[in-house]
């Protein structure tokens, strides 16, 4: 039998085996005739070989936050130049803690998906169809590629979450004292945690889109009101904080059902806000995470409803200071409050109003809707007269009490000049305090360490609110996945490099100099015809910036997934659609089979799709899991300076030629590659460094000469604009003379000569995958 014949036979046997194994699940996939691929529901070690390929190019870089380990009673162990009592050394310990961080982040998304799915199934039933409309056939690209199944109904997601939870348990167990000890194996597990995180996010977003009737990827979704100034303070105000849309959606539904819509203001902070506005476009978004303490301190909210993730743990304490009522709604954060889930709603409302209880735990989203609205309606009048923030005279009075210890600026994560601002405020001058207010993310660390006990956050809030009355902006409604029809249009220009890149601004607000920098970065690339997408707090930060004409980028740039388009995908869980879009390009444009075919899809993305994530303000464990998730797909990410505190990056070495070799699957040769993308996870110190790096990190081995010229033009332009010099590694990205940008021909040619550059052939089918037996050499 010929080699080909043997291979076909092997394939058939493999398919029959899979058919048998999946017989009980065929119903799920009845309209899907794609054969099952090699890695359905991969176990912890099943994609290890792929991970090791990535890690041989992008080596782990560790920056310990702490020299010590205190994770078991053998400790504390000092790991500086020594091993711990369990045998672990400093680099493995960093890899271990990063895995732990990713497990925490993944658990947060998986628990979120579970809470939400349970609620939606109770509400709509197991058989509620997953239908994302006429323009989306590939409804769950991650699930299809990882699990090898596609969802038909809500109940189908249960199995996905069962798989996620099983894998997460294995991964978490590996961080126990005395288990894994090898950094590469820790890193492979970290990638696995990231992949599970991707699945959980996708389950979460698709179920809420289907069941709550959120936008299904349509272009040109409405603009939503955003900002501290959009709330009508004369009405009862309900504030939702967190990430799980269910309680907020039920509040909005309750007001609509009871005809109370115009009587109550429903607003939100962080991702719950984005998702509530996807449910109801009239809901208002206060802003990102950075507004949390500030808004609670302002006392505007009568009722504060918290769900899960990224909620301050002192919400209750802060709310009690100004007589706001707190309702907690998930088992993640109960804050010691009495469980009123099964209590009569009116009895709970009366207990809250009469202050017989400080707040309530209500694990029933519909009941939360009723209780929150009824309580807000009844307490708001009395609360209007409560004076919460100091007035400007009092701000000055407080500032006079400063004892000049400077702990405020020493403990501020960004060393903002709080000290100088307070000295000026003591003289009745508030301009410096206002400048701090505009970039401050109200973490409260300055206030906590103030030796004179000054209420610094309240002082900042007062000054900000007093001078910036019109904090009124616009953001696009989060539109969810990219439609298949859009992918068909852009697949080719992206893969050939003619659209120079897809940039996803994602993640939280731990920005070094305020959110405006995100908007400025986004605009630089929108002007240059990149596709810009955004999620979560970054999407809000982009909306919080107005240009000289007073309009936001969402009003200025089209809501299309195309060159120069700006798309708000939605909340943190909508990050799944970033990799989802890349997977769909591999499938729709390149016809790569998706089904349980992780490695081939990731290899395609790594070598051909110039996408990158920018999480400039990444702060949480979820952010670490999100980066691990996109990295395993071959999508690089850039974090901001605080991202170094994740303690681990994945860096390429452009000076090590050996590590960039690729297999040309067409010719069967191992050929010289290029450092593209140069890093898989990089931390940049400043906005300027990020802008200069993005065009380079969007270069891919597969770019056509025309595409490469476009990318190099952007690289040279932006490097010259922000670093003010010609990029000194340009020769590494010019394969032959056809790649030289026309506008810079002379300059580049001279530079290449100075570097002793020699042309090389571009590979036809670059890949990190092994040659199939008959092709290899």
């Amino acid at each position, binding site marked *: 039998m010929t080699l080909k014949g043997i291979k076909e036979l092997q394939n058939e046997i493999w398919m029959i085996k899979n058919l048998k194994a999946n017989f009980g699940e065929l119903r799920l996939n009845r309209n899907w005739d794609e054969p099952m691929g090699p890695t359905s529901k991969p176990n912890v070690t099943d994609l290890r070989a792929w991970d090791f390929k990535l890690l041989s190019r992008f080596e782990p870089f560790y920056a310990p*936050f702490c020299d010590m380990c205190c994770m078991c009673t053998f400790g504390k162990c*000092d790991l500086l130049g020594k091993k711990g009592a369990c045998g672990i050394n400093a*680099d493995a310990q960093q890899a271990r803690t990063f895995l732990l961080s990713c497990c925490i982040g993944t658990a947060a998304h998986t628990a979120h998906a579970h809470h939400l799915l349970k609620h939606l199934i109770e509400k709509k039933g197991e058989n509620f169809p997953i239908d994302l409309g006429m323009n989306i056939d590939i409804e769950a690209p991650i699930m299809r590629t990882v699990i090898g199944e596609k969802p038909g109904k809500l109940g189908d997601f249960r199995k996905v979450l069962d798989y996620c939870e099983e894998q997460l348990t294995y991964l978490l167990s590996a961080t126990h004292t005395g288990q894994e000890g090898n950094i590469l194996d820790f890193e492979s597990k970290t990638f696995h945690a990231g992949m599970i995180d991707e699945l959980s996010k996708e389950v979460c977003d698709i179920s809420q889109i289907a069941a709550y009737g959120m936008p299904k990827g349509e272009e040109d979704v409405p603009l939503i009101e955003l900002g501290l100034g959009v709330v009508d303070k004369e009405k009862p105000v309900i504030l939702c904080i967190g990430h799980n849309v269910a309680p907020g959606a039920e509040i909005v539904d309750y007001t609509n059902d009871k005809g109370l819509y115009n009587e109550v203001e429903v607003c939100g902070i962080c991702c719950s806000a984005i998702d509530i506005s996807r449910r109801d476009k009239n809901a208002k978004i206060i802003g990102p995470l950075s507004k949390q303490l500030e808004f609670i301190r302002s006392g505007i909210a009568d009722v504060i409803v918290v769900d899960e993730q990224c909620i301050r743990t002192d919400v209750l304490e802060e709310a009690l200071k100004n007589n706001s009522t707190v309702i907690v709604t998930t088992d993640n954060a109960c804050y010691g409050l009495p469980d009123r889930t099964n209590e009569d709603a009116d009895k709970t409302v009366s207990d809250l109003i009469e202050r017989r209880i400080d707040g309530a735990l209500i694990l029933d989203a519909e009941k939360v809707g009723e209780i929150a609205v009824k309580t807000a309606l009844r307490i708001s009048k009395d609360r209007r007269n409560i004076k919460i923030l100091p007035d400007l005279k009092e701000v000055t009075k407080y500032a006079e009490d400063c004892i000049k210890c400077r702990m405020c600026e020493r403990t501020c*994560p960004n060393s903002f000049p709080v000290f100088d601002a307070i000295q000026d405020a003591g003289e009745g001058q508030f301009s410096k305090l206002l400048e701090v207010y505009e970039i401050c993310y109200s973490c409260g660390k300055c206030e906590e360490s103030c030796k004179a006990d000054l209420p610094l956050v309240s002082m900042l809030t007062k000054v900000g609110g007093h001078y910036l009355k019109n904090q009124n902006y616009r953001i696009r409604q989060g539109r969810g996945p990219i439609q298949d029809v859009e992918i068909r249009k852009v697949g080719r220009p992206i893969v050939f490099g003619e659209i120079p890149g897809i940039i996803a601004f994602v993640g939280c607000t731990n920005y070094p100099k305020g959110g405006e920098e995100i908007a400025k970065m986004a605009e630089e690339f929108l002007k240059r015809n990149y596709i810009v997408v955004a999620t979560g707090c970054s999407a809000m930060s982009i909306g919080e910036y107005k240009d000289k004409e007073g309009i936001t980028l969402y009003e200025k740039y089209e809501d299309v997934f195309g060159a120069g388009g700006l798309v708000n995908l939605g909340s943190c869980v909508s990050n799944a659609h970033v990799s989802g879009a890349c997977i769909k390009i591999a499938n729709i444009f390149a016809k790569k089979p998706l089904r349980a075919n992780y490695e081939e899809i990731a290899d395609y993305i790594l070598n051909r799709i110039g996408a990158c994530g920018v999480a400039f303000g990444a702060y949480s464990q979820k952010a670490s899991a999100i980066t691990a998730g996109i990295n395993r797909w071959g999508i690089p990410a850039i974090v901001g300076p605080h991202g170094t505190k994740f303690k681990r990056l994945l*860096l390429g070495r452009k*000076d090590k030629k050996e590590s960039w070799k690729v297999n040309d699957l067409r010719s069967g040769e191992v050929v010289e590659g290029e450092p593209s993308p140069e890093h898989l996870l990089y931390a940049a*110190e400043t906005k300027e460094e990020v802008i200069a790096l993005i065009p380079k990190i969007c270069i891919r081995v597969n770019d056509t000469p025309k595409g490469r010229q476009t990318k190099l033009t952007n690289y040279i332009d932006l490097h010259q604009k922000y670093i003010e*010099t010609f990029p*000194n590694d340009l020769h590494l990205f010019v394969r032959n003379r056809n790649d030289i940008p026309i506008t810079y021909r002379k300059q580049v040619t001279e530079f290449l000569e100075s570097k002793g550059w020699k042309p090389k052939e571009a590979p036809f089918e670059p890949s990190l995958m092994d040659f199939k037996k008959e092709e290899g050499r």
Partner: protein
Amino acid sequence: MMPWQPTTIAGPKQARVANPESVIRMLKKAKRPLFIIGPVIICDEGCDETVCHKAKIRSSCMDIAKEWDIPVVTVGHAFKSFLKEGFDTEPMGIIEIVNLLKDPEWKGLRGEGQHDLVLFIGVTYYIASQGLSTLKHFAQHLVTVTLCKFFHPNADASFPNMSDKKWLKYLEKLKISLRILNQEINTIRRV
């Protein structure tokens, strides 16, 4: 000494408190020093550079590098301010250069071999602290010294926390001492 950001204490080992004299001693011993300069000493837009202390700090840094012939890497977006002065530096990311420094096989900025002493100034405090931690753990082949006005416990030696005035004085002293030392060395060579 308490670090400038108090929570950057990483463990029992802390940097030695340095002064201009001790830095000179370390420089004298070093064969291939490197100077890393970050964006914190770059003036903000609209700043009057004739009075700004950051401009004076930059000027001292350039003099120190010239006096002792130390190659300079500028990180973040620090490159442009030096270019304006006609001073040649190599632009890089702080993470990129730290990654190269931790590799004992790297040939250094001038291709003469891995550096054995690295001076830091003006790198954002917390990112510098993380980079110094990487080098403390994984680059036993080199010594790190910070010339910022903030104490950095993760360095091998660091200037203490101090005012702008004292900081300028320290850098001036370093510059002048290097000049004198250079003159002495040249005299000895001539003799």
